[in-house]
């Protein structure tokens, strides 16, 4: 599987409701070690939302502040971001990901502290 | 070949003037613009002559300026002449402007020929009619701009 197979796919719950598309994939470095990198990166969850460009600008991280104008704009472009834990993912189909948790129960993604 | 052509060319292109110009007003403004370009060329030549008179410039550079001025004026005239005048009033405009353009290009050609031969001292004498031509072109442009 490639990361691209996840990015952009539509996320749908069991009631057929859409949570938007995958904008990013959260990784945690706690897998079995690989080479000189140390622990490998594990897919922890999907960041999902209706609008896309905002996520890429990086303003969801707490320590990224200015400029005010762009921050507000990015916030507006990504105001409905949601987070899906990987263990809630049931199946990955081309362009479609089915999840086991209802869309309304999804919470906002946690802001990253630092890159 | 150079800018004046390009400007007039773009003007024609954007005006959608591949066929006959329907409105006499459009024709008139094109005539005005052509006069403006020609006046600019004549004035440029006059500045070059001024430099020659003061012995301030090389013959080669002066020739270059004069060649370009002549090119600008002739190509503006050529582009204008290719436009079909829409009616009688336009014909009158055309005759009047063509007369001025003819005078200008003829004079500019004489300057260019003298400069090419290295007869820089003759330039001020040859350029004597040009201020008058420039004046008339400018007022034509003013009146029909």
């Amino acid at each position, binding site marked *: 599987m490639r990361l691209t197979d996840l990015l952009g796919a539509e996320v749908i719950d069991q009631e057929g409701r859409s949570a938007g598309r995958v904008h990013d994939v959260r990784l945690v470095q706690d897998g079995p070690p690989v080479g000189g990198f140390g622990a490998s990166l594990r897919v922890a969850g999907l960041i999902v939302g209706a609008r896309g460009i905002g996520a890429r600008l990086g303003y969801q991280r707490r320590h990224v502040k200015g400029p005010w104008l762009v921050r507000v704009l990015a916030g507006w472009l990504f105001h409905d971001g949601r987070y899906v834990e990987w263990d809630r993912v049931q199946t990955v189909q081309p362009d479609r990901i089915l999840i086991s948790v209802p869309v309304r129960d999804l919470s906002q993604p946690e802001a990253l502290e630092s890159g | 070949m150079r800018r004046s052509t390009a400007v007039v060319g773009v003007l024609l292109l954007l005006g959608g003037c591949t066929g006959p110009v329907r409105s006499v007003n459009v024709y008139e403004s094109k005539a005005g613009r052509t006069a403006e370009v020609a006046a600019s060329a004549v004035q*440029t030549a006059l500045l070059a002559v001024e430099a020659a008179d003061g012995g301030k410039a090389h013959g080669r550079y002066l020739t270059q*300026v004069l060649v370009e001025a002549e090119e600008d004026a002739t190509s503006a005239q050529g582009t204008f002449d290719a436009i079909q005048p829409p009616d009688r009033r336009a014909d009158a405009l055309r005759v009047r402007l063509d007369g001025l353009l003819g005078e200008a290009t003829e004079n500019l050609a004489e300057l260019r020929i003298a400069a090419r031969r290295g007869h820089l001292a003759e330039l001020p004498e040859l350029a004597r009619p040009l201020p008058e031509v420039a004046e008339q072109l400018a007022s034509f442009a003013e009146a029909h701009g």
Partner: protein
Amino acid sequence: MKRFVAVALGILTAIGGFVDIGDIVANAETGARFGMSLAWVVVVGVIGICLFAEMAGRVATVSGRAVFDLVRERLGARVALVNLGASFFITFLTLAAEIGGVALAIELATSVNYLLWVPIVAFLVWLVVWRVKFDVMENVFGLAGLALVVAAVALWRLGPDWGGLLHGATHPAVPQGESHPTWWFFAIALLGAAMTPYEVFFFSSGAVEEGWSRADLITNRLNVYLGFPLGGLLSLTLMAGATLFLEPRGIQPGHLSQVALPTLLVLGKLGLAVLLVGFFAATFGAALETGLSCGYSIAQYFGFQWGKFVRPADAPRFHLITLVSITAGAGLVLTTVDPITVTEYSIVLSAAALPLTYFPILVVANDPDYMGDKVNSWFTNALGSLYLVLLLVVAVATIPLMILTKAGS
């Protein structure tokens, strides 16, 4: 002492490097048509390029990442590819314009038709890109570009009505007989000439080429904050020369030779010769910068090895791109399209394309993951946001104005 020399050299090259064929054409044309009434745009453009270049230089120095590397990181592969297409096209047009400009400058000195010089110029540009060390290249052409100061000397010797020029510059108004859209169209052209995107590609890549470290940040600021404004002043003297000599006679300059007339009339043969050296150096230097920038932008998008800090054999795709771009640029000029017209289009489109690179740089300059404690100050951000809005307005207005004014004619 060595440090002082380095700083002084940087400032001087920034002055000479600021002016290129776009500045020469835009300033002469606006001066001849609108007097000093658009001088304020040069000031706005110079502040903008200072802001933009300082940020890009700082980001490149601290993170080691040049502009197009970051454009892709922030905008993603798709949007950045569209951005690359637009930016590369404009840089390429500018390259062609500069090659044409060099050939025109040589034509003025030799009376041999510029088209014959184009292949030779293109070959020399490539040869310098291929062989000459980065800092030598930058210093030689930057310093030689200072010959343009002769235009300022001419203005000084003439002793014009300074008050009148200043009054024209400080009381902007659309001259009689000119329309508002045309005036604004030329304003955009002047802005595009002062803030050309390639300057920023080149500046940030240059910081990586020269291996700048945090200790060089002060040098970066001085180069930008002193060099560019003085360069802007130099281009304003060209505008003033046109205002004094060409505007009253209704001359609309379409040739480099006409731009040189004011200096010639005041200073004579020697002044002209020095000015032509300045034209040559400024356009040749800019041809190098745009040629390299063609390579920088594509290589940085795809992550190829780029730069003159490695052997050409170690950056083969980068060198292939610059070689092809220079050849194609010369080819474009050889179609006998007027280089001055190419210049006019390149600067106007440059203005329209500015947000494409300005925006990602503004965002990254605020990202502590890249910048650590060197993120933008609140003042830079306030000014930066103001320019972001301004550049967006310009980008939206450019094409409609271009159509409405028939490209300013």
